[in-house]
Every structure is written in structure tokens, then in C-alpha cells.
């Protein structure tokens, strides 16, 4: 494991244990978040795919209709017919919070004088095919907006999932093992210090005992010597 630069003290040990607890709790929470986000994301993505296929198909028919219309009219007339729109679209955007990801919810209002009359041109100078095309586009527009909403949501969620996944992995494979390693290191170091202290005390005790023993021996020897010299019993030994 990586080189550990922690000071092996009890205070550090307590600190690291707290850190490990927090990291493990955070890891669990983030994992739950990731799983739930993933579930939502996959639902959204399925929806996006279905809707996109639908919209693309319908748009192609719309394009086809416009092609027919432009074949029947001159491009100037077509441009003139469409240049000034009768209705205007306004979009309101609100937010929905999915697992701390803000995703947009679109809602649009059209401002038009009457719902049935969305054609911004007079019928005299244009062909009927143009009406069909504009009508078809109007129908697909709602889906198009829904597509914008969920596709954007999917993108934003993908970003958030990626971030969360990285965090989970960083905690799981780096942060938590490193902390555990550091705790083990401190524990071992502290145990080692304990043993060292015990051994040192035993040694010191040995030395003191030895010293006092030798002192006693020397005293005895002195006494014996004194006894031998004077041939008198010493007052005390």
C-alpha cells in the first residue's frame, strides 16, 4: 500500500477511526444513490430511445411533406408564406429533482388567435400540401419537446452517475483501504511500543536486582574477609 505518513499516536488513531466510520457511511450512501440514479437513468434512456425513433420517423414524413410542397411552389413563394409566423411559442422551464439532479421540465404555451388557424399565410397563393406539412409538424412538436426534456434529463443524469460512480470507487478502493491500513499500522506500532516498554522495564529490573545482588555479595565478601582477618565475629553481617 501507499507509504504511510501518520504519526503513531493514540490521538491520530482516534481521528482515523472516526474518518473511517464517516467514509464507510458515505460510501454506503453514495452507493445507494448511484443504484437509484442508475435505475431512473435506465428508465429514462429506454423512454428516450423509443421516443426518438418515433420522432425521427415522423419528422422524416414532415420533411417529405415539405419537399412535396416546395416542389409545387416556388421557393420564393414558400419562403414568403412562412416568413411571418402567426403564432409564437413560449417555453416555461421548471425543475424536477431526481436524486439531487436538477432536470428540466418544459411546458409551452402557444400564442395564437385561434387554435384551428395556425397557418401563417393565405390559402390562395399556397398549395394544400403545405397545409399538410405544417399540420404534421405541429403534431410532432409536442413529442419533440418531450424528447428535448427527457434527453436532456438523461444527459444530466449520466453526468451525475459518472461523478457518483467515481466517488464510490475512490472511497471503496482508495480511501477506505488506506485508512484501514493506517489504523493497522498505528495499532501495530502502539503494540510494539507497549512490548518495548515491558521489555525495557524487565531489563531495568534485572539490572537493579543484579546490582543489589552484587552489592550484597561484595558486602558478604568484605564481612568474610574482615572475619578472617580479625578472627572475631563481626557485630553483624
Amino acid at each position: 500500500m501507499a507509504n504511510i505518513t501518520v504519526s503513531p499516536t493514540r490521538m491520530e488513531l482516534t481521528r482515523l477511526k472516526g474518518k473511517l466510520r464517516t467514509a464507510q457511511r458515505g460510501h454506503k450512501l453514495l452507493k445507494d444513490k448511484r443504484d437509484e440514479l442508475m435505475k431512473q437513468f435506465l428508465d429514462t434512456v429506454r423512454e428516450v430511445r423509443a421516443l426518438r425513433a418515433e420522432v425521427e420517423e415522423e419528422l422524416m414524413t414532415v420533411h417529405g411533406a415539405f419537399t412535396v410542397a416546395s416542389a409545387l411552389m416556388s421557393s420564393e413563394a414558400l419562403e414568403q408564406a412562412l416568413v411571418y409566423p402567426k403564432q409564437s411559442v413560449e417555453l416555461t422551464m421548471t425543475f424536477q429533482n431526481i436524486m439531487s439532479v436538477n432536470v428540466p421540465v418544459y411546458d409551452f404555451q402557444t400564442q395564437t388567435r385561434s387554435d384551428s388557424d395556425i397557418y401563417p399565410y393565405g390559402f390562395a397563393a399556397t398549395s394544400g400540401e403545405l397545409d399538410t406539412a405544417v399540420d404534421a409538424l405541429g403534431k410532432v412538436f409536442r413529442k419533440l419537446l418531450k424528447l428535448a426534456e427527457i434527453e436532456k434529463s438523461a444527459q444530466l443524469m449520466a453526468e451525475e452517475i459518472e461523478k457518483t460512480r467515481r466517488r464510490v470507487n475512490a472511497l471503496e478502493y482508495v480511501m477506505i483501504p488506506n485508512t484501514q491500513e493506517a489504523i493497522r499500522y498505528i495499532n501495530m506500532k502502539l503494540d510494539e511500543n507497549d512490548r518495548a516498554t515491558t521489555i525495557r522495564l524487565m531489563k531495568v529490573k534485572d539490572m537493579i536486582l543484579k546490582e543489589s545482588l552484587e552489592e550484597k555479595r561484595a558486602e558478604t565478601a568484605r564481612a568474610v574477609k574482615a572475619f578472617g582477618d580479625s578472627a572475631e565475629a563481626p557485630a553483624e553481617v
Partner: protein
Amino acid sequence: MATTYRIAAVGDWESVMGFRALGLDTYPVSNPAEAKDKIRELAKTDCAVIYLTEQLAQGMDDVLSRYKDELRPAIILIPGRQGSLGIGKNNIQRAIERAVGADIL
């Protein structure tokens, strides 16, 4: 407070002219460089959704990824008049790969 935003369509003239009839803001452009400038410009204004034709989107990955993680604008690719190129579908695939780390669907 609900603010109102605009919807824009960027693409070649034939592809976006229909949107004008619906009341969207249409910006006919002819090449990706022009489209890039237009989108940068639109992103600064009150434009929430930009529909962009796939034909133009081909050459402007940098701008698209720049706005991918922003809340606004949402750049949505639509098939242009020449037909779908599958870029929109690919983008979904890429989003999945990004989130999961592998292609699972």
C-alpha cells in the same frame, strides 16, 4: 417564478423553415462553423431548447459537449431533410456508456 424561454431551430433552410410556422425561432445556417457561432450566441440568450440538424452536428462535437452538462440550453439533434444519420441515437448510447462504464443495452 416561471420565466419564459425561447425555442430555436438551427439547420439548413429547408429543414428548419417548417418550424418557423410553429412560432419557433429559426436560424438558417449553411455550414458547421456558422452553426457553432449561432449556438454560442443563442446559449447566452434566453434560449432553452435548440433543435439542431444532424447534418450540421457532425462537425461540431466540441460545442455540443461544451453544453452537454449545462442545464440550459438543451441541444437536441433532429434529422435534417437528407435523412437521419443516427447521431442522435449514438448520443444516447454514449450517455449510457458514460454512466455505466460499459454498453449494456
